[in-house]
């Protein structure tokens, strides 16, 4: 069967089981958009290529399947660089297809030419420039394989226009042949045994649970491990929901804005059992002073993470789920010899009781306390609700105050910290999980970066809900200027009502609401929940002066955690 390169691409995507692509057409990708008309694949037309990338990320995180974006060459390719870098940091499986100028004009500074594979080399797991239409099915097959196996991540296929137009004989490769790519999935049995021995002998062990557990779909095995060992677990920003927050041994978020019990239990621990986490600086604080008494069992599918920041006494390369299963078997066998750690649990429990997240609940308002808004959103929605956030204060409050009872319901930009992530990512999540309510918790600064994608949401009938915690500032930067720059506020003021978020929402076909007084919060949320045919935006006017606590100041040891205003 003779096909054009473009037809072969679309057919290859169909063969990979792709149901939705996010994209925006242009010159070099034009040939690909023609056969798309005849395909079963749904195309979501975004308003900016960055939106396509983040939507694909949201889709991938909500569904566990790779997200796919198609954009054209040059500026479109550079616009999708941010989502690629974001997905690379947070290990999100993404397949991005970019158009490229014709092979004969590559290197001549042709119209809308950019060195896309060169630019994206260090922010993709791998990328391909296809120069022969016959390679298309093979490369697509390889691309999905690389994106979804081992440590998941973004890949990019650069497709020149003449290759899309060229003719090829259709085939579908039966298997992938990549001699240099063979991720280790099975943990080394001797190491697993040694890990089990150390876990059983530890007096102050802690599970340090990262996003890798979610990527490996290992929540249920983690729950069994925690049940068996009765060892408390912290869930990092990327790992929130891997263990239900209601679980008595779940300590919640550690790190710069983590709670006292999670931070301190790691500091005092004698054994960190690291599951799919990578000792991010936002978790460790000053590395030399992080968990100084702890030995480390580190389990990760990416061998380069082991020993990168912190020496691992027992390093285990493998799929986190598979290794946890093996570990469970080993631990079952020696369960009689477990160290009694009830005193350790009691100590942690006292920290939890004495130092929970707090804010001034007596404050009557207006303005609204942002934490209060999140608590009401949480309590007026079900456990199935998917929460998507941007980056900044609102992100930290969302992670602190939401109760994540299930995996893959918390979507945010962790590693790269991409402002503007939330709205497009929520669209992707809602497209992937139309059965779920999707709430965006966003800041006013973040919202302004990508809000135009709400036009996409309205047009494509993707009824997401957006809560803007509008404090009229780039709040996190403001917090740092207040705390560390003598309250010298430099370029952080945004204004509460310019733009007018309600009018803006309405202009984009959404329902726009404004909440100024605490008494109006519940009604607004309930109204938003009752609207299911279009997106809703609520402009919550929140307290400018509210800061995120606890806080470990940058570069300081986690022992120097600041609990609140009075600790400054």
């Amino acid at each position, binding site marked *: 069967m003779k096909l054009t390169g473009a037809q072969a691409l679309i057919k290859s995507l169909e063969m990979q089981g792709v149901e939705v692509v996010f994209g925006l057409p242009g010159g070099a990708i034009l040939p690909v958009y023609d056969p798309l008309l005849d395909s079963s694949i749904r195309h979501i037309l975004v308003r900016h290529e960055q939106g396509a990338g983040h939507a694909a990320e949201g889709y991938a995180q909500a569904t566990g399947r790779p997200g796919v974006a198609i954009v054209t060459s040059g500026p479109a390719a550079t616009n999708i660089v941010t989502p690629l870098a974001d997905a690379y940091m947070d290990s999100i499986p993404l397949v991005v297809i970019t158009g490229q100028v014709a092979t004969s004009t590559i290197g001549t500074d042709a119209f809308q030419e950019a060195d896309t594979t060169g630019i994206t080399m*260090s922010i993709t797991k791998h990328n391909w420039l296809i120069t022969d239409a016959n390679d298309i099915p093979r490369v697509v097959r390889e691309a999905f394989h690389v994106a979804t196996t081992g440590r998941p991540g973004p890949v990019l296929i650069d497709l020149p226009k003449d290759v899309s137009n060229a003719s090829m004989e259709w085939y579908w490769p039966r298997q992938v042949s990549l*001699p240099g*790519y063979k991720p280790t999935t099975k943990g*080394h049995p001797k190491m697993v045994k040694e890990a089990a021995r150390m876990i059983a002998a530890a007096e102050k062990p802690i599970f340090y649970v990262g996003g890798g557990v979610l990527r490996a779909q290992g929540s249920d095995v983690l729950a069994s491990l925690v049940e068996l060992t009765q060892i408390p677990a912290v869930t990092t920003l990327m790992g929130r929901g891997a263990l239900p927050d209601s679980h008595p041994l779940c300590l919640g978020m550690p790190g710069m804005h983590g709670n006292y019990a999670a931070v301190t239990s790691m500091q005092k621990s004698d054994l960190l059992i690291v599951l799919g986490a990578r000792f991010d600086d936002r978790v460790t604080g000053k590395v030399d002073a992080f968990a100084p008494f702890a030995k480390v069992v580190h389990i990760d599918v990416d*061998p380069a993470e082991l020993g990168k920041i912190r020496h*691992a006494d027992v390093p285990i*390369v493998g799929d986190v789920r598979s290794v946890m299963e093996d570990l469970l078997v080993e631990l079952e066998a020696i369960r009689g010899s477990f160290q009694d750690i009830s005193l350790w649990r009691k100590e942690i429990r006292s920290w939890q009781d004495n130092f929970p997240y707090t804010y001034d609940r007596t404050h009557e308002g207006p303005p609204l306390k942002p934490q209060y808004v999140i608590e009401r959103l949480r309590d007026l929605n079900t456990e199935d609700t998917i929460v998507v956030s941007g980056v900044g204060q609102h992100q930290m409050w969302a992670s602190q105050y939401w109760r994540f009872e299930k995996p893959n319901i918390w979507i945010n930009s962790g590693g790269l910290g991409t402002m503007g992530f939330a709205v497009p990512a929520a669209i992707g999540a809602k497209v992937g999980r139309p059965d779920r309510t999707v709430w965006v918790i966003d800041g006013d600064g973040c919202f302004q970066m990508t809000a135009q994608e709400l036009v996409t949401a309205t047009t494509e009938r993707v009824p997401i809900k957006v809560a803007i915690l509008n404090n009229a500032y780039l709040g996190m930067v403001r917090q740092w200027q207040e705390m560390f720059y003598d309250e010298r506020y430099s370029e952080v003021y945004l204004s509460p009502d310019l733009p007018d978020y309600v009018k803006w929402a309405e202009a984009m076909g959404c329902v726009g609401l404004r909440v100024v007084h605490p008494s109006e919060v519940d009604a607004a949320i309930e109204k938003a929940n009752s609207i299911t045919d279009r997106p809703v935006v609520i402009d919550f006017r929140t307290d400018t002066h509210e800061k995120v606590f606890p806080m470990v100041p940058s570069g300081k040891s986690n022992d120097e955690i600041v609990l609140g205003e009075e600790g400054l």
Partner: protein
Amino acid sequence: MNAESNAIVPIGGAIRTPSEFRHHILSVLVENKTGVLARVAQLFSRRGYNIFSLAVAPTDDERFSRITVVVDVDTAPLEQITKQLHKLVNVIKISEIDPDEAIEYELLLATVAADAATRAQVIELVNLFEGRIVDVGSTKLTVMVAASPSHLDDFEALIVEYGLVELQRTGRVALQKLGKPTTRRKQMKGKVS
């Protein structure tokens, strides 16, 4: 080479001392595809590692090329470098060759001032290092020496006395010594356990 540095070079010493600092030789087998060198080179710069020298050529199997990278051990932990390299899809195999257990060779081309008065001395020096005269001008000679990097350092230190016009070295290639215990040769497959 400036005059000052010429003045302080001891006989038999070296101007540069690449063999004295602790270096590592990585022999990286890669797929012979477009852009692979760029991926390897970019990874080094992206992760903040310094490449001391680099030699690339196809192997006897045309599907693969071999990149011989010499890394200054102080710039980065070697384990992290090899692990990151292994994550490149086009990298097939990485062997670390211990400098003490390696046959290291490098090629040097140099154009040297050599008039009637000094020509004989230059030729004698080249012969001592088992090099060859590969081009002859009226007042200059171009010479070629293939030797271990430290021998080349010595040669460089001596030849510079006559007046260097141009000098080019290839960066070393290396193979494991024969008949030695192979346990010294670490093969890194990206596995820690």
